[in-house]
């Protein structure tokens, strides 16, 4: 008998009835986790150490219910045996870094809520609802596995909330960039001529910045 076998049996009984085990595992989180780990086991993949700890905790929760069909389960759970040795879990810290050109890069273990919040951070609700606003939509860089979010006046506060809510570790450069963004709200852009070259320093005006690059064919500094 292995932990994987007992856990698969638990998952099977729960799939037949949500109220199995007297409703001890009826919460959405339990059902989601058990279904996800069971799918992983059925695919022949090993558990991580963190997953195996949670699996054992779940089995101990329903120990008395399992004891009817499995004699000596109490002893077994004291010294559990796995068919495949659990591998070392990798903990990816949630980090945000300044990538230059008003872009922040978000990296971390993704979950649905985080992904949704990052996608929503592109602009205000009115903007993101409408199509054709690609330049403002957060992009996922598949090579480096990071979300790239361009910060502007429309999403500055959303980005700040995102960092605080999901506890992203921000370094000094990010803090400085966000502070500059806050200070630059409604600041005046400036333009001057130096050695036959026109230098435009745009502040808080996305349209003017785009005009310079896409319409006048200027070069970004």
């Amino acid at each position, binding site marked *: 008998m292995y932990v994987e076998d007992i856990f698969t049996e638990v998952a099977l009984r729960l799939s037949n009835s949500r109220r199995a085990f007297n409703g001890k595992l009826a919460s959405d989180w339990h059902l989601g986790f058990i279904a996800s780990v069971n799918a992983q086991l059925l695919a022949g993949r090993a558990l991580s150490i963190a997953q195996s700890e949670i699996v054992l905790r779940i089995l101990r929760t329903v120990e008395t219910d399992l004891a009817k069909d499995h004699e000596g389960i109490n002893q077994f759970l004291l010294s559990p045996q796995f068919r495949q040795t659990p591998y070392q879990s990798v903990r990816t810290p949630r980090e945000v870094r300044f990538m230059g*050109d*008003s872009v922040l890069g978000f990296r971390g273990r993704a979950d649905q809520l985080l992904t949704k919040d990052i996608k929503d951070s592109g602009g*205000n609700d*009115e*903007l993101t609802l*409408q*199509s*054709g*606003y690609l*330049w*403002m939509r957060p992009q996922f860089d598949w090579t480096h596995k990071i979300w790239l979010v361009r*910060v*502007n*006046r*429309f999403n*500055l506060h959303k980005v700040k909330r995102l960092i605080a809510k999901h506890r992203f570790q921000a370094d000094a450069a990010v803090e400085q960039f966000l502070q*500059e*963004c806050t200070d*630059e*709200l*409604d*600041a*005046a*852009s*400036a*333009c*001057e*001529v130096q050695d*036959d*070259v*026109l*230098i*435009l*320093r*745009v*502040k*808080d*005006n*996305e*349209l*003017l*910045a*785009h*005009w*310079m*690059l*896409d*319409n*006048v*064919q*200027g*070069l*970004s*500094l």
Partner: protein
Amino acid sequence: MSRDSVTLATPATARRLLWLQRHANLTLSPTIHDLASQQRVNPEQFEPLICPHTRERETVVQFLLDCEMRAIVQANHHPDIDPTTMLHAANLFQKKMVSVVSTTTGLWRHAARSLFLEDFDVCAPNAVTGEWIDKRRDGVLIIDVGSDLRVLPSGALLREFPHCVLYQPMVAADQVFDWRVLSFRLFPMMPNPFVFSSVKADAKDLALYYNACIFPDLF
């Protein structure tokens, strides 16, 4: 939020910045004001009998030249701007080749003949071929968008011609296109003006960013 960029300091860019300053929080150095006063169109460049000088014509032609003939002009906003003025602006731009896509080919041919254009061709929208584009893309293209959005050429054609003006002749008031429909095709890389104007500002304040010449207050 802050982005620095550079471009060559030309009188045309200086003048465009002066126009933009009316609608943007933008500080310009005195040198830019000096630069903007150079190389302007002057009244002598207008032919008194064929395309007589008016203040409106001078301003719109100056605007088109400064935008390197990539702009939007609607005659309902500028009644003086007829096909002859458009061709005259193209001629002043010093590109020898001038092409027009229009359903009213006769009108444009007549205007071109009066201006003695050296290399002129007019083509109906459904007769534009790849070969024609290859032959004419180095010159100026004027697209007469008429009053029917269905005959508006594809974005691909607009991308083929770096110097391309969308011109809508005088039409009934309810047939005047929203300039944002045209600008989105002319500048696909720019933020969608419909979206931006819904949250940022009055749509007319944004038109200059998209080279849309729709302002009576330009004069």
